């Protein structure tokens, strides 16, 4: 069960989650065919899959695997519209790691 958890992270947590599946909510800043860049408290490069439909300037929630080069391979992307308060989103990311006992199983 625990392995199914996808911790919510933002750009600054990428390097502690390499090769893991995470959940990132960010704003789409650029789209270039197979790849895209989102802003989640810092910019993150995405490698898109075929079913991912991103809209420029909208928020998107991505479930994906963090690559060794800190880009993210998208497994699933859900459009979250244009009305997202990213301060609250960052607060959730912060709470996720500060009080991880209710969010995900960690090795330490």
């Amino acid at each position, binding site marked *: 069960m625990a392995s199914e958890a996808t911790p919510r992270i933002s750009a600054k947590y990428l390097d502690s989650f390499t090769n893991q599946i995470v959940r990132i909510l960010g704003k789409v800043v650029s789209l270039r065919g197979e790849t895209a860049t989102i802003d989640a408290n810092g910019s993150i490069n995405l490698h898109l899959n075929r079913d991912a439909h991103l809209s420029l300037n909208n928020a998107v929630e991505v479930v994906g695997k963090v690559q060794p080069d800190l880009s993210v391979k998208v497994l699933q992307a859900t459009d979250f519209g244009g009305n997202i308060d990213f301060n609250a989103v960052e607060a959730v990311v912060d709470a996720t790691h500060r009080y991880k006992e209710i*969010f995900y199983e960690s090795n330490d």
Partner: protein
Amino acid sequence: MDYGGGYSTTSYGAQGGAGGGGFMGGSQGGSQGGAGKGTYGKDTLRPVTIKQILDAQQPHPDAEFKIDDVEITQITFVGQIRNISTQTTNITYKLDDGTGTVEAKQWIDADAGTSMDITSDGSVSKPKLVENEWARVWGRLKAFNNKRHVGVHVIRPITDKMDITYHLLEATYVHLYFTKGSLDTIKQENGTANGNQEVGYGGGGGDTSMNGLRIPNVSMNAKRVYQVLKESPQNNEGLHVQNIAALASMNVAEVLKAGDELLSHSMIFTTVDDNTWALLEF
């Protein structure tokens, strides 16, 4: 002729006949059984993450589940719908909120016939639930054959995605309330500590202090017992568990557990017998 009379002699038959399915009878009985045990008056609706649902403790079968050592009755959570499986008696939704995955079962009320319409035809007034969209559930945690699921009272699609963010923050807040105490208490404690002695902000992570005395990270109940022992008039024999229970309006089992915690931290000691405690002050 005497249709009703015939059935009323066996309550089982009557239930089956009227409900149109054994499962309906069962689920009704289940939730009402809980109410009968006296939990009805203290029903709560707690926002939780799915990981908290999976980690919930059940002291013994049939007991209410506990999260952070507090009984839960009704819960609410959010999740992305991973799978919808429609059966004759229920619809099972598999939900994932990023902290875990849990199944939520909604029993189909054959008489009302409304829940059925969700899947057969989107034109009814009921909102549509589709895979990969987010939903919010209100329900009750059940265990069946060692497998946990949530008995759904209401399940609705989430229209404003910010609800997910707010829900997770709310679940965190309630978790912290039960494990570390209310925001007011913590502020007060920190205030006193900083005023009375040199307890820096640095300690904030692990320890909290109460009335100038450093106390380890103990449960809410243990803090309450400690508080009672500190504030209640007593002689050098301290207070008996029964008295503490009455003063703290907790039950004896909870007080005993809290006492064990405080004993293990050497914050209290036993006096005339094992169940009479006094503060270990120095």
